[in-house]
Structures are given as C-alpha cells and as structure tokens.
C-alpha cells in the first residue's frame, strides 16, 4: 500500500525477484529429483527433460504431430473467421437482427462447448475432422459477437456524413464501416484463434489418434515422463509463439487502418 515510485532500483528488484523465482523453481525441481528421492515417474530430472527436448528437436520427430495440429488449427480458424465475419456483418445491418441474434449467440457462448466433444467424436470420428469441427464451433462465437459489436456500433453521424457526401455502398463499407469495426473485430478474431488452439489441443488430449495433444497423452500412458515433460514444454512454447504472432498481427491491423 506504500506509494513507492517505480524507480530504477525498484525495477531491478522486481527483475531480480522474477529471476530468483524461476531459479528457485528449477533448483527445487533439480534437488527434489536428485537429493530428496522424488520418484522419476512423478517428476523426471530436469536435465533428462532438457536432453529429451533436444532429442525431439534434433530428430524432427515432432514434425508430423505439429503438422496435424497446425492444419486442424488453421482450417478450424479459417471456417470460424469466414463464417463468423460474414454472418456477423449480415446480422449487424439492422437493429432488429442484432436484437434477435446477439442475445442468442451470447447465451450459447456462455456454455462450455467442450461438453459436446463426445457428440462430435460420435459424428465426425476420432480423426482431425472432429477437432476441426469443435474448434470451429467454439471459436465461431467470439468472432461473430465481436463482428456484430464492431459493425453494429459505428457512429451514425459518420454514416450520414459519408452518405450526404455521395458515398456509394462499396465506398461506405471500405472507408467508413470497415475502419470503424476493424479494431473490435480483430480482438474477437484473436480471442477466437486462442480458443481454437485451446480446444484443438484439448480435444486431441481427450480423444484422438494423432497431433501434439495426443502425443502427450500417449507418453503419459507409456510412463515416459521425461519425454512427456519435454513435449509439454514444446507445446507451451509453440502456443506462446502463436499468441505472440497473432497479437502482433492484431496490433499491425489496428495501425494500418
């Protein structure tokens, strides 16, 4: 509660705490596995994990699973982005349609749709199709809701002004509606991408034959803990990388308008 300013000393201090936190975490992990006799089934030695990670990267074993997961992700996101933006734009054109559909989509969005995974598996099978279908369904809602919000809340004066200056429909869309709606839409698309990634890795973990999520479960069931931890680190890094890329695309999209 003290109002200490973020001086240089304070900032260096926080940095030191962060580094110390990570170092203590790794140190305790190492000591737990070597000195304190924690079973390597429960917690593998961090050095072994690092070695396994090196092996996975060097052998290129991850390529097939990564390709499956990324293909599912991009197909699912393409479906939800195209359908969500199209439907959202059509709905946003009249107040009446917004009031009919917006509460409906918000209500469905509040349900954890991962519940329907067993049904998707039943209908689409264990392969990539069920992951794509689930990922597309889950990520559809943030995209469509933000598109409705974006196009539905454009300032009336801007539209009237453009009309009175003789803008045609395509011109109105290109120079007034799209720039006004884009920031909100981009946020929705970023959220859609994130939940698509989560639901695809999730459904691969729960029921699948291939993909990164499946690989982790496969190693867990085979009790190959060091390799499993290495794959977890790999997937977390891939997810972080994808999030950074998507966030920077979002920021660039905002600037370019």
């Amino acid at each position, binding site marked *: 509660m003290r109002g*200490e300013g973020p001086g240089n000393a304070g900032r260096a201090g926080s940095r030191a705490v962060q580094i110390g936190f990570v170092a203590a975490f790794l140190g305790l992990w190492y000591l737990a596995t070597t000195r304190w006799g924690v079973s390597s089934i429960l917690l593998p030695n961090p050095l072994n994990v690092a070695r396994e990670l090196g092996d996975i990267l060097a052998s290129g074993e991850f390529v097939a699973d990564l390709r499956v997961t990324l293909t599912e992700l991009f197909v699912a996101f393409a479906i939800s982005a195209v359908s969500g933006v199209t439907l959202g734009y059509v709905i946003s054109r009249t107040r009446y349609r917004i009031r009919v559909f917006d509460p409906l989509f918000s209500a469905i969005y509040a349900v954890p749709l991962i519940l329907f995974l067993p049904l998707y598996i039943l209908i689409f099978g264990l392969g990539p199709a069920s992951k794509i279908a689930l990922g597309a369904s889950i990520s559809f809602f943030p995209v469509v809701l933000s598109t409705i919000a974006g196009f539905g809340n454009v300032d009336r004066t801007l539209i009237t002004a453009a009309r009175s200056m003789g803008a045609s429909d395509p011109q109105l869309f290109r120079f007034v509606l799209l720039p006004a709606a884009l920031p909100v839409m981009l946020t929705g698309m970023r959220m859609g991408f994130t939940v698509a990634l989560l639901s695809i890795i999730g459904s691969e973990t729960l029921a699948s034959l291939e993909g990164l999520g499946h690989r982790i479960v496969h190693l867990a069931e085979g009790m190959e803990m060091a390799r499993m931890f290495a794959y977890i680190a790999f*997937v977390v890094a891939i997810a972080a990388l994808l999030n950074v890329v998507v966030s920077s695309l979002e920021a660039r999209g905002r600037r370019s308008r």
Partner: protein
Amino acid sequence: MTALPRALRSPGVARLGVILGLLAVWEIAARWLVDPLFLAPPSAVVMGLGRVIGTRGVPGALGITLYELAIAFALSVAIGLVVGLVVGLHNFSRRSFMPIILLLYGTPQVTVLPIFILYFGIGPASKIAFGVTHGMFPIIVTIAAGVQNIKPILLVSARSMGANSWQMLRYVVFPHMIPSFFTGMRLGMTGVLLGVLLAELYVSTAGIGYFTTLFTQNFDPTRLLGLIGMLAAMAIVLNEGVRRLETRYARWRD
C-alpha cells in the same frame, strides 16, 4: 413483415422462432437424414431425459460433478482473493509477480492435464485441482486490476485520518473491490467449469465423464445428448447466477 402484428415482430418472439426453426431442422435431420446411431432427434432426447436420470449411477455422477465444481470454485475464489489483494496492493510484488501470473494464465493448461491425473489420481481430487488452476488466474488478475484502480487520494486521506491497515482494507479497499470481485467470480466460474469438465471428459471413474464415454461407446446418442443437455443447463444456471450477482453489485457507486 408489415402485415404481422406487433407482438410477433418483437425480437424476443423472433429469437424464439429462430430457436424453434433450428430444432425443427435438427428433428428432421435426425429422423430421416442421419444414421440414428449418431444423432437423436430433440423430441426423443427430451422424452429420454427420464431414462438418463434413471440410469444407475447418473444422479450420483451429476452430484459428484456439482461437488467438484463447488469445491473448485470456492478454492479459486479464496486463492484468487488473497493473491489478488497481495499482488494488487503491494507495488513491488505486483511488478515482480504479475508477469509470472500472466505468463501462467496464458499457457494452454490442458497440456499438463495428464500430470494432474498422475499427481491427484483419477478421482475428484484431480478434477478439483484442474478446475482451481483454471479458475484462480482470472480472479487474481481482475482483483489485482480492481484494487490497483483505487484512487490514491482515498487511501492517503483514510491514512491521514488515522485509519489502521485493517480499517483501510475494510472501509476503503473492500468496497472499491466489489465490482471487480464479482467480475472475477464470473470469469472464474467460466474457468472452473472448463477445467472440471475437461478433466472429467479426460478420465473419470464415477463422474459424468464416465457416462459420456459409456454412452458414446454404446452409440446411444439419445442418452448422451440428454446428459450433455443437463450439464449445459447446469453450466448456464451457474454462469447466470454469478452474472446476475455481477450486474447487481457492479454499479453500486452510480
């Protein structure tokens, strides 16, 4: 459209019409177009709800899942409140730990689900633990952001009027925290539902995950959809409950 009476044109009625239309499409597709092993018509699902409840073990499984959700939510709120307050009120700990919390919040936790099962077993403990790790981060982040937005002048004036630390928490911080607390509860509930249901679907001996697997493997879409429907209803009730609380308490200052 102009010929329709006003009542029929209200958005609520139209929305109901859209829902009924979708149900009709589903009914027709399930009855005549899709293999009955994979999809059941909504009428059969509704009629079969009694049969789902009558399945031995299902009421118990719903009870276990509700219990897991309740415990996980209570733990998430408790942890989120304490950590959120500490991190939000103390500048140094915020700058030190907020990046770490945000980093953990941003990782796809489902990748570590097998580890949770390994550590906490296949019973309710692993579901509760997984629900807590999903629920506590949004609560921490919202509460930390909420207390950070308290105007410094309020803290300074309370201090200068001789308030001690407890009095400042009780009369300045807590009242200002209420809106973000309820927003955090809503986001936390969404997280807890996701975490518990993910862990249930992954592996379960007595919870609802056991029965979704059973019904899927028996190609019994009627009972599967009935069970999923009941869980979705449960999720909607829980979400709606915390959302109502949020809208009720969010605007106390206006």
